[in-house]
């Protein structure tokens, strides 16, 4: 039962990163790809109808995490207090940037919110990557399963790690590069003309960076967190994951150079899902490994809610997810195809 909820929460987080990832990515390349107001509105129109729904995956995943693993939620949210609060502020700024930009037709107003939107997207990508890095690296958990990390200490992995050290900075940069590529592929897929062209070029330029960082981070992760290899040894079918990761990355390059934008974007989705899935596979059954004393690690067993609650939750969760998927299918169908600026209100 705990394993099932671990998979559910992991899947919801993957859905969040894949979906909100492309609108974050669109924000990252926004100022570079969109040069005129019309081009910027085209990019916003591409993410406008869906970004809010994408972000709901974060809230829904957070709620589900709280429900299924209360101690993990309590411990990680209070331990990552400062970066989470900053993530909140960035999410707020970003939402304001997208939604209020088009209310006024003034270059000053629009320019201001353009920068807000893009900078908050960039910082969010780095923060999320660093967060994942922290989870993989482990945090200084005490006997009660709690910890507190300052933003940084000495930038080293040791007994007193900060949120940022060389490892988490690297995962942050990896996330930034990945989402840049991901967002660029999405924008290319949804647009025509100059915007499409620039976005596609960006995706091709970032591709080698992503490949290099993926490789380096895999190597380093095995050094930082020795146990990750254990699960792959115990269940060899897990080795499919790295194969999928590199195959999908190759797919991105192939389809993007062939101007086949949709398959390229889908490959990028698979790549992200593979990376996150691999991380989850590697740390299972831990959910938050302890940096020093392994016995303090939070696992799915010592953090989960009681069995009855989890069983009840399964009923409404299944109903809820079917409805949510129906909404998403509906909205994405409704707004499918290339964005063409038309008359009317909106972004």
């Amino acid at each position, binding site marked *: 039962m705990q394993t099932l909820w671990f998979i559910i929460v992991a899947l919801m987080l993957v859905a969040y990163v894949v979906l909100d990832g492309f609108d974050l990515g669109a924000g990252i390349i926004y100022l570079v790809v969109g040069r005129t107001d019309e081009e910027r509105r085209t990019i916003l129109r591409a993410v406008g109808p869906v970004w809010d729904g994408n972000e709901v995956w974060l809230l829904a995943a957070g709620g589900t995490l709280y429900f299924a693993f*209360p101690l993990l939620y309590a411990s990680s949210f209070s331990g990552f207090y400062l970066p989470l609060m900053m993530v909140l502020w960035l999410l707020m700024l970003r939402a304001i940037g997208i939604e209020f930009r088009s209310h006024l037709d003034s270059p000053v107003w629009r320019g201001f919110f353009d920068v807000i939107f893009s900078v908050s997207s960039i910082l969010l990508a780095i923060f999320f990557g660093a967060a994942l890095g922290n989870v993989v690296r482990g945090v200084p958990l005490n006997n009660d399963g709690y910890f507190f990390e300052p933003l940084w200490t000495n930038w080293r992995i040791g007994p007193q790690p900060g949120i940022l050290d060389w490892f988490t900075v690297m995962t942050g940069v990896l996330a930034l590069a990945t989402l840049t590529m991901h967002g660029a592929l999405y924008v290319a897929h949804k647009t025509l003309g100059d915007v499409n062209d620039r976005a596609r070029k960006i995706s091709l330029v970032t591709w080698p960076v992503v490949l290099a960082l993926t490789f380096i981070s895999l190597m380093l992760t095995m050094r930082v967190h020795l146990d990750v290899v254990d699960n792959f040894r115990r269940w060899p079918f897990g080795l499919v994951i790295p194969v999928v990761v590199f195959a999908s990355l190759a797919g991105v390059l192939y389809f993007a150079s062939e101007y086949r934008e949709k398959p390229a974007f889908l490959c990028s989705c698979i790549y992200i899902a593979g990376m996150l899935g691999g991380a989850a596979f590697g740390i299972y059954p831990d959910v938050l490994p302890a940096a020093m004393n392994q016995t303090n690690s939070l696992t799915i067993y010592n953090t989960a809610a009681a069995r009855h609650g989890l069983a009840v939750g399964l009923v409404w969760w299944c109903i809820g997810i079917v409805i949510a998927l129906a909404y998403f299918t509906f909205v994405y169908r409704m707004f499918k195809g290339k964005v063409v600026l038309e008359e009317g209100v909106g972004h």
Partner: protein
Amino acid sequence: MDSALFIHRLHFAFTVTYHYLFPQLTMGLAPLIVALKTLALWKNDDRYNRAARFWAKIFGINFVLGVVTGIPMEFQFGTNWSHFSQWAGGVIGQTLAMEGMFAFFLESTFLGLFLYGEKRLGQKLHWFSGFMVFAGSWMSGFFIVATDAWMQHPTGYLRMTDGSVQLRSFWELVLNPWAWWQYAHNMSGAVITGSFVMAALGAFYLLSRRHQEQAPIYVRTGVIAGVIFSILQLFPTGDGQGRMLARYQPATLAGMEALFRTQPGAPLVIIGQPDTEKQQIDNPLLVPKMLSFLTYKRWNAEVKGLDAFPKHDQPENVPLLYYSYHVMVGLGTIFIAVMVLSIVLLWRQKLFDARWALWILMLSFPFPYIANIAGWMTAEVGRQPWLVYGLLRTSDGYSKMVSAGNGLFTLLGFMGMYTALSFLFLFLIHREIERGPEPAFEVRLKPPAYEPELAEVR
């Protein structure tokens, strides 16, 4: 008071109070917009469609602010109240997760369709998306109120050996009688805010002789909804909520009334300042025996005063509790008076010419906001010193790992951020009000001499 505890309480109190300025309006406006949209389809009258479109814009701005300030609320359970979250997550994780799965997905999907998709969807589907936004926001309200109601009156839980709680009965959690009274009272309060705001803006347009065709619709809709829900707010919802309190939180009730001593035939205090040192009310204006009657429906029933409870189980801040409760009830009474007066004038077809009455309607819109916030303060301050009534004390629930200094840092950050948001919000709302509803179709056919910049954008 331990300063970290104080900072964490202030952190939540500040962010939730600010947050609730927006959902109370969106939850209140949503049914009114659906009503306008329904009238438009039913009577095939474009005036109502334009009214719905205009209010959807006001709704949209408020909704964005509501979402943006709402995200920190879910996070703060973990960041600032981690021990409470760990302790109670097995129970209230249910309602909070269900809010995400059922309400947030629904709202985020249909809001965009409702705000921007009228042309693409056609009228009937557009009505449907409006209705779904209404349903989503009210569902979201339910899950949050059910969570709070569980903290006020825990049901359906099981005590574990480590002291924490886990779910025993899902239905007892969701069908908690406290939750349903509180929900009804809260939603009715939200509609009061929505209707006062709608009536006030209509009155403003009438008084300034603008949008003379649309303004009466706003005033009429606002007044009709306002009178219904102002009365529902008192009876049965307020009354039912009061009976819950008398039954399950007698110490809170004593604090709300600042009833220091247990007595039969307890009076109801209308005005007066509680003096906790001397255990009395200064310059009181009392209705004899009324409190006994309201609480137990018997004039001479004995009502427990604060002296009936040990000091450490009494509400900590009796004056604040007393004031927030009395502000809420006092304003609620005034709302009924204003709305009954307005509906009588409306009935006799004099309201739109009675400038004095329009002035009252226009100026009264801030007060439902105050009353709603005061009501929530009554509930939350009244529950103290408990975080979960009778089970977990507030002083045991906050994040012990987050120091006062770190808490103050983010509190100040939120204060700065929300100040900026307030300016942005007021500016955008002011702009929508100045622009007003779009003119009627015949007017629109004239050459667009007005707003040249608008033609440029499109």
